[in-house]
C-alpha cells in the first residue's frame, strides 16, 4: 500500500487539501489580521502544491508543454504572496497604529 506513494498524486493533493482547509479555517476564525494573513499563505501554498503536482502528472509527456508551467505558476504565486505580505502587513501596521486593534471585523471605517 505504501509502495510508490511518492509516485501517486494522492498524497500531494491530500496535503494541499489539508493546507487549504486549515488555511480557510484560519481565515474564518482568527480575530487578528496577521493571523488571517497566515491563513491566506496556507491557502496560497495549497494552490502552489497543486500546480506543481499536476504538472508532474504530465511532465515530459507528449501532452505537457516544455515550459514547466506548473512550476512557473507556483513561482509567481510565491512572488505574489511576497508582495501581498508587504502590502497587507503594511496596512495592518498602519491600522494598528491608528486604532490599536487589528481585528478585521472591528476595522470598518475605510469602507466607501
Amino acid at each position: 500500500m505504501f509502495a510508490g506513494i511518492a509516485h501517486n498524486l494522492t498524497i500531494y493533493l491530500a496535503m494541499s487539501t489539508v493546507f487549504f482547509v486549515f488555511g480557510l479555517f484560519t481565515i474564518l476564525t482568527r480575530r487578528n489580521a496577521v493571523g488571517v494573513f497566515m491563513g491566506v499563505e496556507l491557502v496560497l501554498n495549497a494552490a502552489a502544491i497543486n500546480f506543481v503536482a499536476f504538472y508532474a502528472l504530465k511532465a515530459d509527456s507528449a501532452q505537457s508543454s516544455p515550459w514547466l508551467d506548473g512550476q512557473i505558476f507556483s513561482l509567481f504565486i510565491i512572488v505574489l504572496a511576497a508582495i501581498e505580505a508587504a502590502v497587507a502587513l503594511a496596512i495592518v501596521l498602519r491600522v494598528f497604529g491608528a486604532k490599536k486593534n487589528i481585528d478585521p471585523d472591528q476595522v470598518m471605517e475605510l469602507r466607501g
Partner: protein
Amino acid sequence: MLQEFANALSFIVLAAVLPVGILFVSKFLRPSYPYSGKLATYECGEDPVGSAFVMFNNRFYLVAIVFLVFDVEVALLFPIMRLFREAAINGGALPIFLLAFGFLFVLLVGLIYEWKKGDIDWVRDAIERKQALREDAAFKHRFENVKDS
C-alpha cells in the same frame, strides 16, 4: 538529481538534529540549580521594568518590506541570468538583457523613489520635518484659495 537532493537533505537533517541532540545530551550532563535571581531577566542588574515588548520603531518594518521586494527580484533574476552567458556567446543575448534589466530598472525606480522620499534613511526626522512644513504650507495655500473663490 534526486540523489543530490537526498545528499543535501541529509545535511539539513543532520544540521537540524545536531543542535537538538546536543541540547538534549547536555541536559543530562549540566547542573541545574535555579533560583529567582538567576531566572530574572537581565536588565543591567536592576529589577526588570515593564514588558520587553515596547512599541518598536517601524523603520525596521520598512526595511523588511523593501528587502522583501528586492529579495523576490534577486530570486527571479537567477534563472534568467543563468542563460545569459550562453546567449552572449551563441547570440540572442539582447532579449534576455532587455528583459532582465528592464526588470531591474523598474525596481531601481522603486529604490530611487524610496531614496528620494527618505524611506531608507534611518534618521528621518530632519527630512520629515522639512516635508511636513512644506505640505503644511501647501495645505494652507490651497485653503486660502478656496476662500478666494
